[in-house]
């Protein structure tokens, strides 16, 4: 077996891969790692989403990979560019944890669950089925998707490695 190439996806970043390359993003806390996979052409895409909606953006140059509502359309566009058919796409996601517990807590404290909700809404709006997820709770995750098989691997400090 040959070592598969790893394509790193940074924070507030997205990328696509095919031919068995692995997309990886590390240290997801309240952020969400969402992946798309087209089994027919063996292509995968991953976005590391940090915030739920671009409506709250105050930046000049919008980083579309950062927000759930803007990252998904871009990820689909990039998937198409490497030969994927949007109708065949299936999604998996992980992250959206609440790293620190506070009594009460402002809106920003719930950012993890909100990221998960808006990512799901965005997937729904494109009619992409969500096959599996590992979201919420209070721990960090590192995730990978294999563009050859669509296997989504999650690593965490407490629970080790699991596949969905």
């Amino acid at each position: 077996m040959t070592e598969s190439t790893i394509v790193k996806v940074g924070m507030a970043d997205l990328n696509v891969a095919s031919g068995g390359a692995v997309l990886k993003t590390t240290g997801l806390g309240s952020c969400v790692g969402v992946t798309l996979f087209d089994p027919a052409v063996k292509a995968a895409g991953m976005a590391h989403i940090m915030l739920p909606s671009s409506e709250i953006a105050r930046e000049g140059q919008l980083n579309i990979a950062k927000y759930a509502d803007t990252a998904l359309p871009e990820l689909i566009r990039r998937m198409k560019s490497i030969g994927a058919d949007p109708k065949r796409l299936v999604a998996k996601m992980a992250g959206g944890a609440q790293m620190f517990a506070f009594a009460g807590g402002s809106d920003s404290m719930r950012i993890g669950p909100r990221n998960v909700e808006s990512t799901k809404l965005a997937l729904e709006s494109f009619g992409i089925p969500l096959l599996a997820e590992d979201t919420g709770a209070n721990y960090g995750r590192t995730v990978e998707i294999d563009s050859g098989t669509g296997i989504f691997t999650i690593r965490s400090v407490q629970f080790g490695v699991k596949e969905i």
Partner: protein
Amino acid sequence: MSLFQNDADFKMDVLREVGNIGAGNAATAMSRLLNKPVDMAVPTVSLLPFEEISERVGGSEAIVVAIFLRVDGDAPGNMFFIISKDSARRILQGLLSFEAGEEDEYTEMELSALCEIGNILAGSYLSSLGDLTGLYMSPSVPSIAVDMAGAILSYGLLQFGTMGDDALLIDTTFLEGNQEAEGHFFLIPDPESFEKLFRSLGVPVE
């Protein structure tokens, strides 16, 4: 950030001094707690891409012990006291004479003790900062996590997230005894807080 267009170097110096005074007090408090000398490096102030911030503490996947406090008041922000697992053990043993637990897990008691240490240090950091600036700054109840540095720190970057892809942080490294890089104090003021900090210190803000 537009606030740093003029006199950027001078403003960075001012923030460095803010970190110096705050962390200096925290180091003194820590030294009293541990009853041994605690030194600190000159704080660094930098505008870093999100990705590089966790590099400061060993990378996004490095497992760290982090005590997080939200700073409320006139100049809100986020504060982290971050130590390696080894340092956390040493602090617990030195301070509380806890049995050297070899296992990876921390007991509730140990976590609570570490949380309280973070609380005391952050309190002394903020109170000296309050004295200096005349601003009201109050820490929230501290919260602790033992997890990947990236997952933890991203939580403190949300306020910056809506503005761009970098955050400005004041980072002070603690050195306990001869062992370097014992711990980090990160103060990440909310983007809106810088103007208040500068005004209170008499730095001209256009």
